[in-house]
């Protein structure tokens, strides 16, 4: 069963689609590609749902997206309110503090339950097997061996979407919005960000090794 995987694309605070999709995935190891929060209305609920499934057997893998790192950076004062707001963080702040009064950062720090903070801090940068590598932003085609955060979580590599790219392993990522609301399937790259929580698109899972898609 541990060999049967489901990779789940960007959720962006749509807890309804997340719960629906989880109900249809069956018994397999779940690998979440990051961007659980921001833009959509229910960041707090999404983290609650993900916390509820952390003890599944086999353990799900939670990867970091740039939005999780953005929230952590805002909480610690390394990202400004303005920068986090531009990332789509206002809805996340509202989902935790309800009504803001004055010092937004302090109010968010106070309102966020410890398990949520620990969850965000414990997300992994990538998941790799002999056949595939999964990470939020994909690998940099110029230096495909790099597993550094700026490359595989925060980076932008639009050249991944050239159809003739081939790597030694299949690359599975989210991050890059597919305006068609369908996953991108290239020769060596699959992208699962189909607009959930941002443009009203579905949440997409890739079932592996079957290589079929499921959407909610």
């Amino acid at each position, binding site marked *: 069963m541990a060999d049967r995987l489901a990779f789940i694309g960007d959720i962006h605070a749509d807890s309804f689609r997340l719960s629906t999709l989880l109900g249809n995935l069956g018994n397999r190891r779940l690998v979440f590609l990051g961007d659980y929060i921001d833009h959509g209305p229910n960041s707090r609920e999404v983290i609650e749902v993900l916390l509820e499934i952390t003890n599944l057997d086999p353990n799900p893998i939670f990867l970091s997206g*740039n939005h999780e*790192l*953005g929230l*952590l*950076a805002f909480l610690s004062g*390394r*990202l*400004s*309110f*303005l*920068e986090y*707001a*531009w*990332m789509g963080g*206002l*809805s996340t*702040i*509202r989902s935790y*503090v309800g*009504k*803001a*009064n*004055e*010092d*937004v950062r302090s*109010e968010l720090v106070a309102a966020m339950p410890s398990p949520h903070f620990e969850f965000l801090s414990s997300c992994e940068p990538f998941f790799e097997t002999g056949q595939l590598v999964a990470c939020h932003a994909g690998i940099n085609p110029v230096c495909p061996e790099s597993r550094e*955060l*700026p490359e595989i979580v*925060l980076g932008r590599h639009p050249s991944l979407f050239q159809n003739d790219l081939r790597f030694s392993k299949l690359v599975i990522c989210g991050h890059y919005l597919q*305006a068609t609301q369908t996953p991108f399937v290239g020769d060596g790259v699959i992208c699962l960000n189909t607009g959930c929580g941002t443009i009203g698109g579905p949440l997409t899972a890739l079932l592996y090794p079957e290589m079929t898609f499921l959407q909610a």
Partner: protein
Amino acid sequence: MFTAEQVRELLAVIRPPFTALFLYGSHARGDAEEASDVDVLQVTPTHTAPYVVGRINVTCYTFEQLLRLARSGGLFARHLVEEALALADPQDVLGSLKSAYVVPLGYDGVKEEVCDCAPLLDVAEPQFIENVEGLNSLVSYLIRTYLYAAAFDQGARSFAMGHVLDVLGQRRAKIALSNVRSQRNFQAFAVARALFEELTGATCERLEGSLEAFIVNASAHNNLAMILGLRLLARGRPFTYDALQDVEF
């Protein structure tokens, strides 16, 4: 009307990429005065922050955003479909917007949105001095938008401010807007703000203890207040999506 030379100068300040460029506002209508800004719409492939170069204000929207505005009958979409002049439009974006544009039943929604922005103007003189340009632009924008909405509800036919003020019988607003632009001091701003309160019936008092808190709360129900608030905070600095790249993790 713009000469070929002026168009070349305009194109020289545009920061690519773009899929289409339009002139709108007084220069497109041909009723610009010497001090009038030049309003340009840049259609971009991805979300891009607006920017200003001298007197040229460049507003950036994606085609999808513009289509949504056209379908919802927004004021900006009306502005474009009635007045915009194409500087570059190889894919006929303007034609698509004209086809998609839906005439709204009225502009009460716009007026309500503008009224909800009133607390953004709740500043004392020291704060005003820190962001003269941003606050003057904001009070002018809010007054003008409210006047456009009110005038179109009363049968106005053009975005020319003179015509709008005639329809509403609001010559005082012209003086207030002109003083904001020419005097650039807190007194002119305060007069314009008082006029805004009088026109709209809104109160500029902010209940939250910070602009950030107001933006958070407003973002739940008013996109306009959120965006204008963020622009106010940004004070003209361009937004960079790569801010996270500079953070140590």
